[in-house]
């Protein structure tokens, strides 16, 4: 998928000015947050979540420290059970490999269970170009696909930005059926359309929530059951997943499954957790005859062992965006690439180039709600701050900002001058406020006060107050 992250400011302005989107964001707001809080209480005493997520952090970190060796172990065990393990460096290689597999097995149609990697690669368009019809089967992803391949706006709830009315219109115009206004009726309509595809597709494509090294298995988590359909009915199954998704044992899967659904949707467990290993036996009634794993780099290998390595622990629950005041205000599309919210503001610059997503690390209040809820303890605000540092180091900030920082740095090294400047500054700001507690339009930086007020200073600097308290003039 082509990144539009460089247009963040314009995207965000569009989102703020879109009343339908704003209404839909308000509807969704808080639903995930409240359910998550309730589900976490089931873990036990008040500190149980902390203990569980600390254990999860340790497991993820330990694997990532030896990820090359764990990948070899996974590969060895997957191959022993009859799977083929392929590797892709980028999205173009994913597309080529999947198209090749499709051709080899005479595939005309592929049913897909949610895969963010396939969004990274823009796989659907590539498959269509190769003569293979891709059909998204997650209800949300299906809605987006029939709406001219609209990108998702949330990693767990891809159509969180759409209202029931919009979906009703879409089904009516695309399916040519009488317009339905009840959610169960719309869901049934999609079920019937997609059931036919499940039964006739030759290939199933899925992501992978976890790869289990011990057994060479993929773990797939869904509520709808489409993950099971895609991996049970077609004769070919292709798993597309990032190289960072390996975990050691089935016990580690149990641990992470106590966190993933609770953090994502506030469920104790997702309806379907499938652990899939190898190909079907000749005497079995169902399951694929051919299983392929495509292990994808697409920027991940370079993050291994780097100062951003904590980000690779991510298990894609979406809790960070559900709790992010910025995401809740502008929605997911404004972020411009596959991953929105705080995790996206870290991943997009890392995977598509820091220089191509200059605004994303700035689009955060650093309030650390994301860090507090993260089930694998990713210090998201720290990573955002580090990305900001990188921007400065690489001279990627706007010229005016760089100049202003240089001036400030010089002044800050000259305490007398700094004191005079600060005294003048606060008096000017106090005058500007004109007796009110906040400033509506900041004279020197009107952009800054476009969406917020500036708190008015009281009139004297800290150093003045301190000196007076010490009894000096």
């Amino acid at each position: 998928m082509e990144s539009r992250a460089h247009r963040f400011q314009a995207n965000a302005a569009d989102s703020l000015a879109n009343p339908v989107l704003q209404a839909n964001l308000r509807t969704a707001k808080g639903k995930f947050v409240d359910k998550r809080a309730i589900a976490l209480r089931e873990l036990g005493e008040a500190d149980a979540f902390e203990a569980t997520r600390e254990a999860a952090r340790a497991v993820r970190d330990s694997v990532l420290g030896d990820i090359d060796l764990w990948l070899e172990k996974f590969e060895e065990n997957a191959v022993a059970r009859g799977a083929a393990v392929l590797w892709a460096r980028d999205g173009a290689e994913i597309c080529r490999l999947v198209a090749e597999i499709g051709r080899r097995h005479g595939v005309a149609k592929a049913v897909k269970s949610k895969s963010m990697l396939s969004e990274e690669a823009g796989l659907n368009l590539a498959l269509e170009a190769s003569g293979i019809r891709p059909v998204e089967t997650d209800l949300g992803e299906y809605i987006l696909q029939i709406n001219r391949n609209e990108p998702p706006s949330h990693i767990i709830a891809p159509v969180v930005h759409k209202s029931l009315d919009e979906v009703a219109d879409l089904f009516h115009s695309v399916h040519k059926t009488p317009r339905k206004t009840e959610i169960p009726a719309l869901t049934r309509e999609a079920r019937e359309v997609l059931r036919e595809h499940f039964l006739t597709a030759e290939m199933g494509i899925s992501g992978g929530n976890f790869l289990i090294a011990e057994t060479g298995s993929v773990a797939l988590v869904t509520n709808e059951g489409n993950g099971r359909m895609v991996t049970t009915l077609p004769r070919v199954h292709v798993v597309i997943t990032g190289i960072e998704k390996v975990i050691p044992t089935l016990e580690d899967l149990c641990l992470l499954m106590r966190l993933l659904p609770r953090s994502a949707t506030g469920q104790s467990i997702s309806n379907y957790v499938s652990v899939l290993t190898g190909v079907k036996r000749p005497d079995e009634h169902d399951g694929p005859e051919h299983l392929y794993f495509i292990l994808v780099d697409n920027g991940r290998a370079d993050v291994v062992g780097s100062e951003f390595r904590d980000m690779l622990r991510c298990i894609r629950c979406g809790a960070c965006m559900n709790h992010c005041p910025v995401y809740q205000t502008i929605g997911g599309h404004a972020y411009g690439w596959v991953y929105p919210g705080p995790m996206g503001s870290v991943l997009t610059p890392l995977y598509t180039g820091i220089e191509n997503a200059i605004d994303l690390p700035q689009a955060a209040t650093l309030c650390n709600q994301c860090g507090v809820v993260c089930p694998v303890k990713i210090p998201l605000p720290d990573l955002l701050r580090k990305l900001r540092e990188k921007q400065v180091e690489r001279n990627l900030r706007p010229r005016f900002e760089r100049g202003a920082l240089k001036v400030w740095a010089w002044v800050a090294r000259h305490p007398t001058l700094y004191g005079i400047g600060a005294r003048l500054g606060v008096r000017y700001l106090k005058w500007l406020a004109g007796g009110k507690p906040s400033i509506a339009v900041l004279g020197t930086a009107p952009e800054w006060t476009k969406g917020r007020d500036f708190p008015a200073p009281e009139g004297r600097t800290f150093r003045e107050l301190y000196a007076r308290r010490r009894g000096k003039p």
Partner: protein
Amino acid sequence: MTRRADILGRIRAKLNRNPENATAGRAAIEETLAARVQGPRPPVDTEKSALVRRLIEKSLAQSSTVDTVASDAEAPAAVARYLAAQGLPLQAVVWPALAGLDWAGARLAVAARGARDADPVGITGCFCAIAETGTLMLCGAPDTPATVSLLPETHIALVPASRIVAGMEEGFALARTELGQLPRAVNFVSGPSRTGDIEQTIVLGAHGPYRVHLILLAQD
């Protein structure tokens, strides 16, 4: 250079991999795999009747329904009762593993095979059931095909009380001791299929069953 060698090569450079720490790392991996350390677990009372109670409570919370009979001999009648109460036809596809029960005696027309699209009801057993979350653990095999719990709109599962375990960990431990290697498909099923994609409103029956009905076999 192959794609694999390129990706692994760059990772190894990042991790300062050398022959010595590779050998040590591989040994550590074998230790980790052998140790199978468990994470912190929520409190679950593992006394037998408590496990049964918890499975029932959590299954209901997952929108499943639950009935209890003494043993598998009574299961066909319980299935017939449930289907009649739901206004569903007395016909079903069952796991071949359950073909030996007296289904005809309960006036049920059953076919022992994998499910097809139009089959209205699927009857399965389970490998075990997990009390912690109200979850069925189903293991695919020729006589326990996965489609039976997936394609029909109604899924009925027979759950022997002796096969109720505390958590997923115990389920996997049973699979290791009884089956050796993991079967191709291990499916954990917790209630009917559902989606919340439209306006975060939960709707049952997305792609899988609309109804999941557990029949507990108290003395089995």
